[in-house]
């Protein structure tokens, strides 16, 4: 991708990763991008340094704007290796004496990633530096989403370099929200659900803090995906709404199955929920991906989980999803469990304990059906679904 001047003197010099499909367990069907930004002012500043294997591409992109050796400083907003992996290569090329500005935790964390003794300079929260015609302000955003995370704000031009916040895993030439249109929101939602949901309380505090500071944000440049230049408030407001965790009247039935009995149950339960007028979708775990499931769950009031009993336990794929979902700390949810079994039938109790550990309010004692559901069992499932639907509507 050729560098693009996204604002006067600010260039997108990042790279597109068209082929990645598994981003540490997050499914990235559309690839992703590692965005990096070059500010050409009296000082030349590089913000973030892409993933290691793209470092030379980053340097080549920069070279189309300015000789990389002329860079005066590098800002590392986030230590995670998709934004810092290229740092040793970049610093080696431009000069290891050049300062790497980062948060205090960034200095600690970067030095635990790289053997090179780089010239780290920890900045204070709220510290302001001038790079010529513009001032850059650093905002600590710890745990959004790592301890080292920070934002860099070009105060003069209202450009927020927001690291992973407001990002989306998406590779494409659209580059801007107005070019991509509303399709960007689905990617942003998936990103929030899978990366940021557990820090929702921090996000609400940060938005309050930023509002009180009265920052005039005219453009948001995340480290992945599309840049928000037309309506940055749209994504900020979406983050607030998702963080408030006031789910919709919606249920998701997440299940796995061995001999299709739990599937029959899942679909009959979904029928019952739909009859109650609640939006619902059954999702078979091995036909989907945990990160897609999490995206569906983000705004669902009811989490309905089903598993056959296997070896006196739940099916391992169900355990995978439950562990993943619990870690993302959903709040204000209703929970229900079901499953087919042969002789012992522990799965429902195990699922309910997991849902309770998430803080979900258990709707019903759960539904177990032995072996293959007959017509009567299917009717019980539909009825169970209706009760779930009613609870969602209450």
């Amino acid at each position, binding site marked *: 991708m050729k560098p693009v001047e996204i604002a006067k003197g600010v260039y997108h010099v990042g790279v597109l990763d068209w082929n990645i499909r598994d981003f540490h367990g997050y499914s990235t069907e559309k690839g992703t991008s590692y965005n990096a930004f070059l500010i050409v002012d009296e000082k030349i500043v590089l913000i973030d340094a892409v993933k290691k294997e793209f470092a030379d591409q980053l340097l080549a992109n920069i070279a189309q704007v300015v000789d990389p050796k002329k860079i005066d400083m590098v800002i590392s907003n986030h230590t995670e290796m998709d934004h810092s992996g290229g740092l040793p290569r970049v610093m080696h090329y431009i000069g290891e004496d050049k300062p790497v500005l980062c948060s205090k*935790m960034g200095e600690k964390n970067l030095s635990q990633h790289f053997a090179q003794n780089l010239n780290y300079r920890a900045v204070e929260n709220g510290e302001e530096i001038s790079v010529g015609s513009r001032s850059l302000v650093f905002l*600590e955003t*710890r*745990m959004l989403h790592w*301890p080292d995370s920070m934002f860099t704000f070009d105060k003069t031009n209202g450009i927020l370099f927001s690291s992973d916040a407001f990002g989306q895993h998406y590779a494409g030439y659209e580059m801007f929200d107005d070019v991509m249109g509303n399709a960007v929101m689905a990617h942003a939602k998936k990103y929030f659900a899978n990366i940021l949901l557990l*820090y929702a*309380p*921090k996000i609400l505090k940060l938005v309050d803090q930023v509002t009180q500071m009265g920052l005039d944000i005219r453009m948001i440049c995340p480290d992945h995906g599309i840049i928000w230049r037309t309506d940055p408030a749209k994504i900020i407001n979406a983050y607030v709404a998702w963080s408030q965790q006031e789910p919709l009247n919606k249920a998701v039935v997440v299940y796995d199955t061995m001999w299709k009995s739990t599937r029959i149950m899942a679909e009959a339960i979904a029928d019952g929920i739909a009859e109650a007028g609640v939006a619902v979708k059954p999702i078979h775990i091995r036909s989907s991906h945990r990160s897609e499931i999490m995206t569906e769950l983000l705004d669902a009031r009811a989490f309905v989980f089903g598993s056959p009993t296997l070896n006196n336990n739940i099916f391992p794929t169900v355990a995978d999803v439950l562990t993943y979902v619990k870690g993302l700390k959903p709040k204000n949810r209703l929970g229900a469990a079901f499953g087919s079994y042969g002789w012992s039938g522990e799965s429902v109790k195990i699922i309910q304990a997991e849902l309770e550990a998430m803080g979900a309010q258990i709707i019903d004692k759960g539904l177990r059906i032995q072996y293959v559901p007959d017509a009567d069992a299917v009717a019980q499932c539909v009825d169970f679904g209706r009760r779930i639907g009613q609870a969602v509507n209450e």
Partner: protein
Amino acid sequence: MDKYVCTICGYVYDPAQGDPDNGIAAGTSFEDLPGDWECPVCGAPKADFEKQA
């Protein structure tokens, strides 16, 4: 003395260890930490901590 867990990042404050990097001596109870003490990992305030079960 009780240990306290940061509800944001999972860091555990152990009074036996204190937080020497931030000037908190070993043996300081959670209650005796200064009001402006923050989680050394994620910067959360004391109010975001819960007693470890």
